C-alpha cells in the first residue's frame, strides 16, 4: 500500500508538468524556449477556447506555438511576438485581456457592482438604525422621578 502511494505521488508529480509542446517544436536556446513557453501559457487556443496554446493538442495551436518561436528567434520582444498573433486573431487570444476602453467593464465591472451594492446596503442599514434618543425635557424628568418613587413605594 505504501509503495503504491509513493508510486502514485511520483507519477502525479511528473504528470503535473506535462504540456502539449512536442520536442521537435522546442528551441535549442533554453532562454528563448523559456520565454516562448511562458508566453504561450497566456495565449488562447482559438480552436479549443479554454486551453492555452501551450496546453492544446489542436493542429492550429501547434502552428501558433511554432510561429511564436519563429518570432522570438527572429529577435521579437515578448510584446512584439504577442502583437503578431493579436493582429491576426484579435485580443481574444490573450488569456489575460489588456485594460482598454472596451474591456473596462470586464476589468472593473465587478468592483463597480460591489461599490454600488455596498452603497445600497449602507443606505439601507442606516435607514433601519434607531434614531438617537432625544434628551428628556424637565417636565418628563420630573415625571420619571415620580414614577420611580411610586414604584419603589409600591
Amino acid at each position, binding site marked *: 500500500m505504501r509503495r503504491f502511494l509513493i508510486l502514485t505521488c511520483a507519477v502525479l508529480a511528473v504528470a503535473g508538468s506535462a504540456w502539449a509542446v512536442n520536442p521537435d517544436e522546442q528551441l535549442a536556446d533554453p532562454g528563448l524556449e523559456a520565454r516562448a513557453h511562458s508566453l504561450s501559457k497566456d495565449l488562447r487556443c482559438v480552436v479549443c*477556447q479554454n486551453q492555452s496554446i501551450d496546453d492544446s493538442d489542436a493542429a492550429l495551436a501547434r*502552428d501558433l506555438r511554432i510561429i511564436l518561436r519563429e518570432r522570438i528567434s527572429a529577435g521579437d520582444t515578448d510584446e512584439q511576438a504577442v502583437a503578431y498573433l493579436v493582429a491576426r486573431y484579435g485580443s*481574444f487570444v490573450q488569456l489575460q485581456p489588456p485594460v482598454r476602453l472596451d474591456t473596462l467593464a470586464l476589468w472593473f465591472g465587478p468592483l463597480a457592482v460591489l461599490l454600488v451594492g455596498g452603497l*445600497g446596503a449602507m*443606505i439601507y442599514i442606516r435607514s433601519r438604525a434607531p434614531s438617537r434618543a432625544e434628551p428628556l425635557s424637565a417636565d418628563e424628568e420630573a415625571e420619571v422621578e415620580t414614577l420611580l418613587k411610586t414604584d419603589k413605594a409600591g
Partner: protein
Amino acid sequence: MRRLIFILPVVLFAAVLIGFFAGLGRDPALLPSTMIGKPVPEFSLPSVRPGDQGFATADLGGEPMLINFYASWCAACRIEHPLLMRLRAEGVLLHGVDWKDQPQAGYQWLQDRGDPYVRVGSDVSGRTGIDMGVSAVPETFVIDKQGRVRYRHVGAVTPQLWDETLRPLMDKLRSES
C-alpha cells in the same frame, strides 16, 4: 426616490439576466475578425491543380470576389460544396485555398466533387490562412474591388447566408468605385 433604491437592484438583475440569456444562444466559435477593412495580407500559393497558375495577392481586386478556405479533411466543407458549385455556375468570382492539406488530397477533392474555383491555392503550412485569422475550415471572405477584406464567415456557407448577406454585400461592393 426611496422606492427607486429598492426597485433599481431588481431592474438591474433583470437586465443582467436578459443579457446572459441572450448570450447563451451565441456561438463562441464566431470570433470577431481583425481583418475587416484591411487589405488581404501578401501571399503567393502554388495551385492545387497540377500545372495550373497559382493564387496570389495580385489576383485580388478589380471585382468583388469570394475567397473560400477548404480542406479535404473538412466535414462541413462537404455541406457547402454544392452551393459553391451553384455560385460558380452563376458566375460568382470565387477563389479557393486548400488549407493545411496536401495538394494531392485537395485536388482529388475537386476531381470527386467538382471544381467551383477560378484560382485555387495550396496552403500546406496554413500560414496564409493564419495571416487572415482563419481558425478552422470552411471560412469564406468577401473581398472588395480594392482587395480589402469586407466580411468573414466562419462555417459552411448556407443558401440563406448567400441570399441574405453575401450576395447583397457583393452587389453593394460592385457599385462602389
